């Protein structure tokens, strides 16, 4: 699984074939680094709330997961405060299309890791949409983020075989999302089986 380097990333950005890497908007060419692409913080947020419930439940009788979050929006250039211990669902500013032979690891840029903002997620080959960013501030201090700033980077890895995202038997949960969405863990089919085991 070779890591894509700058020249290959730039080459794929110019393609129109299925090997194309699609990023819209790519506001600055300098977002492409030697072995990664910087991605910017998008304008939509789902902010976690404290509720009366003791836990987020994934059972059939649960209170909906979305009720633990509140939506808010900012304009590009405006600030968003990430509080210690708080989970905030956001997305990349960029709409991304991965080729069928490339997957991506999304990690916080070093500058933001040092502030306590952590993120580590994997994006499937052939993904389409704004990259989901599950932001958590692990430091003691609130951190001010600017919408549109380069918060994360994508490391892109090529695969030997193509791996279609859309055409799989199980419908993908997050195809084409342009704003953050809450977890749909409750839709995992094996939870029903596990529920029978757990009684």
């Amino acid at each position: 699984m070779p890591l894509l380097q700058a020249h290959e990333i730039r080459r794929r950005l110019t393609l129109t074939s299925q090997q194309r890497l699609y990023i819209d908007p790519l506001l600055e060419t300098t977002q492409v680094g030697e072995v990664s692409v910087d991605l910017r913080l998008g304008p939509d947020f789902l902010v976690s709330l404290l509720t009366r419930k003791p836990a987020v439940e994934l059972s059939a009788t649960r209170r909906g997961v979305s009720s633990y979050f509140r939506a808010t929006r900012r304009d590009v250039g405006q600030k968003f405060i990430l509080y210690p211990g708080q989970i905030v669902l956001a997305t990349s500013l960029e709409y991304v299309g991965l080729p069928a032979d490339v997957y991506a690891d999304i990690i916080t840029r070093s500058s933001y890791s040092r502030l306590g903002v952590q993120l580590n997620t994997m994006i499937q080959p052939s993904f389409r949409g704004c990259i989901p960013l599950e932001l958590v501030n692990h430091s003691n201090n609130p951190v001010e983020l600017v919408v549109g700033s380069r918060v994360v980077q994508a490391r892109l890895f090529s695969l030997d075989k193509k791996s279609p995202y859309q055409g799989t038997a199980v419908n993908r949960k997050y195809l084409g999302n342009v704003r953050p969405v809450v977890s749909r863990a409750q839709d995992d089919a094996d939870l029903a089986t596990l529920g029978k085991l757990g009684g």
Partner: protein
Amino acid sequence: MRPRVDLHLVANTLRALDDSAYFDERVHKFTRHFIGAIEHVLASPGKYDDAIETNFAYLCRAVQSYLSGSTNNEIPFEVVFCLTDALRRWRLSDAAIVTSLTEDHNFHLKPLDPWKFIETSIADYDAEGFQLPVVMIGVPRIYAHKPIFCVPLFHELGHFVDLKYRVTQVSAILNPTPIAPAGFDDLTYRMEHFADLFGASFVGRSSIAALEAIAPNAPASITHPATAERAALVDAFLAGTAHPTIDLFQNALAALSLPTLTKVFDLVDVAHDFNDVRTFVPSSIEQVYGMYDSAWAYLFNAIDKRLNPWQLSDRRDGIVEALVNDLTEKSIRNFAIREAWHAAASSP
């Protein structure tokens, strides 16, 4: 309730709203000045006629709902971005668009000018030179993030432009021969036709296709021409076919030294990009307008023919609708971001 009680309540709500964020800073100033005008009236019991206080309270309640729907969290940003450009093309850049998210399924324009009322009826309120015409438009809440379904807003904006410049009234003076059947309201017929043409000039046939979807086969009424008649006029306009009703509006616009009705949009085809679940990248605002028509045709073709170019294993109309509207919304949003970025990057 009683007008002065309502004014108290509205002022409190507006103060809370002013703590929210608006994308358009002018709306903040409007809110603060509006609160100032309310406080001015409340500070002087008996100074104004009951009728003025009653009308002002009604106006304030209306303004409150439009300001509530215009916060960052509520406003349909992408559509308002386009409507704001449309206003600029009609030399109305000084106006701000405010949106009320409604629970019904109708789009509307509230034909009120709040600031004008303050200037004329509460004339001793010192606004320190502040002035802001607002375009008060109603958007069904379920369509707030559905730009394709918001094409009727261009028709509503046409009404605003008409009211602002009195285009249809001038047309009736210049060409008094009625275009409505005998016994029907000729002026409202002209207003509807003008707004239809205005909408079509920006978003093409999607504007009238929306009417055909909402009110198919609607017959002529006292105030509105039949849907088929309205569609035929728009089709003639888009085809460049001469039509006396179009001519009478163009004559009025020329007499008012205003832009004439011309196609603003550039034809585009979103299919190639949307089939691959990618955003469309317009190269100009004219192409952004063209996206509405293309995306409308794309969406309903996919629904009607049960197409599935995305290879969705669970292809439901609701999923298709969300996918296409989201791609359209993000395509517009990205265009706006690129414009703002390049403007900021190139400014000193």
